């Protein structure tokens, strides 16, 4: 009796063995959750919020020196030349124009001294803004000069100071005042 002769392996046998070994291995795990859609959503939200901030009245920031009074008014705040009267300074369009002492204007800064109404540095600054806005209006009829001013004032400001600012505004042809207030119930 002759022993069965082992057949010599072919290249096909080798490949079959390789396939079997590789096939037995576990498939690699799927890695992590796909967070790309979430990131897309977040980015859209972020852009939306930044856009709404840019167009809204975001520059009103309350502090110890600037506490805005509350009101029952429901009119949406609109964009206009911004004037801020805090207890220590008057700021026009983000630029400090003069300092206040206990909410009062120094008599030397007013035309006519203590009894004067026109605040000279403020008036000069407002004239520049008026000229700038009028130049824009002459080039673009859609942005006509209406003399609108957004007045953000500290609630403790004495009416005399407010009056002097309003008088200076009036002299610089800004007659449409928009007092910025907190909607009732919005302080807490």
């Amino acid at each position, binding site marked *: 009796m002759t022993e069965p002769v082992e057949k010599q*392996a072919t290249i096909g*046998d080798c490949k079959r063995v390789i396939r079997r*070994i590789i096939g037995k*291995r576990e498939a690699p795990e799927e890695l992590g959750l796909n967070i790309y859609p979430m990131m897309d959503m977040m980015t859209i939200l972020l852009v939306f919020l930044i856009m709404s*901030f840019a167009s809204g009245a975001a520059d009103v920031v309350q502090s110890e020196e600037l506490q805005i*009074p509350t009101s029952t008014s429901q009119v949406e705040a609109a964009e206009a030349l911004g004037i801020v009267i805090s207890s220590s300074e008057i700021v026009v369009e983000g630029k400090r124009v003069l300092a206040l002492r206990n909410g009062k204007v120094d008599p030397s800064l007013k035309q006519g001294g203590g009894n004067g109404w026109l605040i000279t540095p403020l008036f000069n600054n407002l004239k520049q803004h008026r000229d700038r806005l009028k130049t824009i209006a002459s080039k673009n009829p859609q942005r006509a000069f209406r003399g609108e001013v957004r007045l953000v004032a500290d*609630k403790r*400001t004495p009416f005399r100071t407010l009056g002097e600012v309003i008088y200076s505004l009036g002299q610089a042809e800004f007659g449409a005042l928009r007092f*910025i207030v907190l909607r009732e119930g919005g302080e807490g």
Partner: protein
Amino acid sequence: MPKFTPKQRAYIRKRSKEKHLDPSEVVGELNIVPFLDIVVNLIMFLLATTEAVLLISQIESDLPKIAKGRSSGADVSTPLNLNVTVTDSGVIVSGSGGKLAKGCTAVETGRELTVPKKGAKYDWTGLTECVSRVKQQYNDEHSVTVSADPQVQYEHVVAAMDAVRNRGKDPLFPDVMISVGVR
């Protein structure tokens, strides 16, 4: 089972070996998790600050117009010319006929205030009542001029504007003008 030659065995071992790719060979995805953290934080911050922004509104008020020459006809035709002046001790309501007495039904000349303070606080409800009584008589009037004494704080002026503008949802004198002239 066919018989493998050593060469074939080496070939099988080589081909079936688990490959560990070099990190540089792996097709890399950008790790966006830290970026996502930043975005989430930014959104939280923006949402938290938006709340204060949304609660801001404005009071529209114009300066009284200076009448020139004959064009002052419009002012002359205004029969009421309602003025509300906030003082330290209360509120004075006056019209072209003179100062209103307490109760807002008659005109008087004395030093008494139309709506005096209640204790240390201004009586804004009283002012609204008073002005609504005036409104009943002058239904076509819409404008009021608000003024105050020099030392009166701005918040009281705003409160006075609120009191004369409307009563609940009924408009009283919605066109508020602000006058800075000294009384």
